[in-house]
């Protein structure tokens, strides 16, 4: 999709008609929109896309569309119009999308008289034809728009790795690569299963009714607990952010700079060690699940194995054959090998003898089976004890290290406290937040355990209900549908998890590639399973500087777009979209600004970039200018009502 033109009339501070023709040249795919100051209308212009396409406006006083100065001068019964019109091409077709509100002043009060949304397509003769307004979802799906519109606030959220940013980027990745289809399918199937539980006809069965009631109550409890968990998680993110802010403040004091740096490093190592311990506990649980039963069995049974003298049973008894099978052979008169068995013959007598050693007549086979089982248990659990001991030793060693880290952190905290003055005050506040965070993390763990318990109860009650459902034909039919839905859901879940792992791996590669071009240092970026990212410097320390965070975010956005452009398989969305970015260049170093200018135009098909003129003309322009097709300037008049006009800058290059 290429955006060709945007026309605004009386839209917020853009009074009268303002027009921007975006550069759609392949070689010069960049349009730059600059303003002298913040507040000139960059965000409003970015939001004009959102309003035109989806009637969303993420701005203060979002219901106020018409320009303030126009409203002020309207006479009674006079009508005024506000609109945003966007001209674009998509999959070889040209569209004009127009959203319009008409306002009227009656008795001194201005109200919206009507609103209109219109999409026109230009056919091969150049004639414009109206099409269904719902087509907007096919041209630019709203869910996907989040990956090509990036306002300053979103970039900040992404760079700060807070919950909003985390959800935002996770959702964007899922939408672009089609995983949202699978997420939705799973969500709907899950609800359908619950609906089937309610559809079971309990008839006169009090037990069934009881189970159905329990399910409703437990589901409500589960949802409430999940909501509580979300609130605590948000608080957790907020506290972590506050801690980071205090750390930044402390690092700005020369007196404690090195102490704070060292604390950050120790805290990071401590976190890694705690993670390591979690992994070891998981390993322990898996090993116990796989081998503990065999280990215990082999230990118990080995006490009895000496009671049998297995030599007594050597060459006697064949596992898998019982007396009945021998009787059948004798009856049919033909052996398994095909030889005839005549009564009184040597073969006949041998089989009669053999019957004595086969169950149920003989214990020989049972003893052999018993012995075989002990051997199997012994083999499968042979190294079990040693392996478990090894893991426990590792856990012990790491726990000792963690204790050491905690002691060091406490010592540093005391030293920082002793610095007195402002530093002491900041450190005290930091410690308060740190303690609150610990409390919050404990509560989070408790809620997670509670959720697991409720889920277990739900599973058990559902199982009981399914069993009772076998009692009548109508319920058996519902049960059969549940069986199908469960298997479909499991298969989709399995596919989703495989696909997501592949995507995270690919995204990691793409983001690292873009990031390295932007940063040019020995930093490494890693994308975690929850779509958060961390940047580690050559000493293994996590980076926290604002400039670096913004570069990381831009690397991330670039990586997503690269991945989406390559396309992957049948469920993914292959259409390419422009990148429209309110770029916070102010916090970037000269080198980083130049790198951004070099890298971004090559990532997206079309780049529309909003920035302050001081940022654009210092270093950024000299690198990007060969790719820039058009430059516009937002000029703001700060009168009684804020007004902005858009002016094309001539002689760009």
């Amino acid at each position, binding site marked *: 999709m290429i955006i060709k033109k945007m026309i605004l009339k009386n839209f917020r501070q853009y009074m009268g008609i303002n027009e921007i023709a975006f550069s759609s040249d392949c070689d010069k795919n960049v349009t730059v929109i600059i303003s002298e100051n913040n507040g000139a209308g960059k965000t409003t212009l970015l939001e004009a896309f959102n309003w035109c396409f989806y009637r969303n406006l993420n701005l203060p006083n979002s219901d106020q569309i018409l320009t303030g100065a126009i409203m002020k001068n309207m006479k009674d019964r006079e009508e005024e119009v506000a609109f945003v019109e966007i001209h674009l091409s998509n999959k070889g077709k040209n569209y004009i999308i127009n959203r319009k509100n008409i306002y009227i002043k009656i008795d001194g009060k201005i109200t919206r008289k009507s609103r209109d949304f219109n999409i026109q397509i230009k056919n091969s003769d150049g004639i414009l034809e109206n099409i269904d307004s*719902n087509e907007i*979802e*096919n041209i630019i*799906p709203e*869910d996907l728009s989040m990956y090509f519109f990036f306002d300053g606030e979103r970039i900040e959220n992404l760079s700060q790795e807070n919950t909003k940013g985390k959800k935002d980027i996770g959702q964007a990745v899922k939408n672009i690569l*089609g995983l*949202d*289809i*699978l997420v*939705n*399918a799973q969500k*709907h*199937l899950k*609800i*359908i299963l619950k*609906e089937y539980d309610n559809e079971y006809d309990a008839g006169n069965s009090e037990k069934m009714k009881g189970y159905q009631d329990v399910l409703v109550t437990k589901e409500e409890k589960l949802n409430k607990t999940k909501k509580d968990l979300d609130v605590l998680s948000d608080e957790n993110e907020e506290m972590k952010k506050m801690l980071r802010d205090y750390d930044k403040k402390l690092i700005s004091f020369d007196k404690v700079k090195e102490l704070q740096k060292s604390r950050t490093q120790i805290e990071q190592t401590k976190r890694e060690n705690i993670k390591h311990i979690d992994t070891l506990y998981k390993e322990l649980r898996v090993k116990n699940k796989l081998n503990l039963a065999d280990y215990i069995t082999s230990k118990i049974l080995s006490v009895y194995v000496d009671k049998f003298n297995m030599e007594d049973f050597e060459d006697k008894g064949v596992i898998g054959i019982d007396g009945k099978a021998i009787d059948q052979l004798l009856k049919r008169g033909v052996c398994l090998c095909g030889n005839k068995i005549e009564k009184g013959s040597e073969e006949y007598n041998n089989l009669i003898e053999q019957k004595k050693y086969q169950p149920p007549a003989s214990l020989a086979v049972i003893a052999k089976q018993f012995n075989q089982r002990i051997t199997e248990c012994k083999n499968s659990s042979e190294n079990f004890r040693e392996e478990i001991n090894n893991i426990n030793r590792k856990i012990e060693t790491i726990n000792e290290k963690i204790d050491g880290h905690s002691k060091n952190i406490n010592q540093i905290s005391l030293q920082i406290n002793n610095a007195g003055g402002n530093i002491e005050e900041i450190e005290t506040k930091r410690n308060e937040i740190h303690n609150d965070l610990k409390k919050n993390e404990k509560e989070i763990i408790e809620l997670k355990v509670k959720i697991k318990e409720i889920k277990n109860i739900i599973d058990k009650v559902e199982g009981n209900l*399914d069993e009772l459902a076998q009692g009548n034909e109508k319920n058996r*039919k519902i049960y*059969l*549908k*549940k*069986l*199908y*839905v*469960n*298997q*479909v859901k499991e*298969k*989709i879940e399995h596919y989703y998890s495989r696909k997501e792992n592949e995507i995270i791996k690919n995204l990691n590669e793409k983001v690292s590639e873009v990031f390295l071009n932007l940063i040019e240092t020995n930093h490494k970026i890693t994308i975690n399973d929850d779509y958060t990212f961390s940047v580690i410097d050559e000493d293994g320390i996590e980076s926290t500087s604002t400039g670096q965070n913004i570069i990381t975010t831009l690397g991330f956005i670039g990586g997503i777009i690269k991945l989406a452009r390559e396309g992957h398989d049948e*469920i993914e*969305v292959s259409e390419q979209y422009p990148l429209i970015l309110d770029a916070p260049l102010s916090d970037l170093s000269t080198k980083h600004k130049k790198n951004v200018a070099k890298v971004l135009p090559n990532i997206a098909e079309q780049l529309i970039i909003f920035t302050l003129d001081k940022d654009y003309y210092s270093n950024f322009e000299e690198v990007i200018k060969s790719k820039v097709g058009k430059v516009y300037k937002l000029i703001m008049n700060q009168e009684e009502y804020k007004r902005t006009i858009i002016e094309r800058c001539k002689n760009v290059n």
Partner: protein
Amino acid sequence: MKYDEIDQNIVDILITEIIRKEKEFIHGKKKSESIQRSELKKLINTEVYKNDN
């Protein structure tokens, strides 16, 4: 749950059709979640019992 009594061909058809319908739901004309679920339930009903009719 036991899966031995269910037909894997029907499971495959259901997966394909459900994903197609969800794709339409996300990228097509907007409809409510409950209408979407009711359409999925109709599909499940038809596929699971089509051999009975």
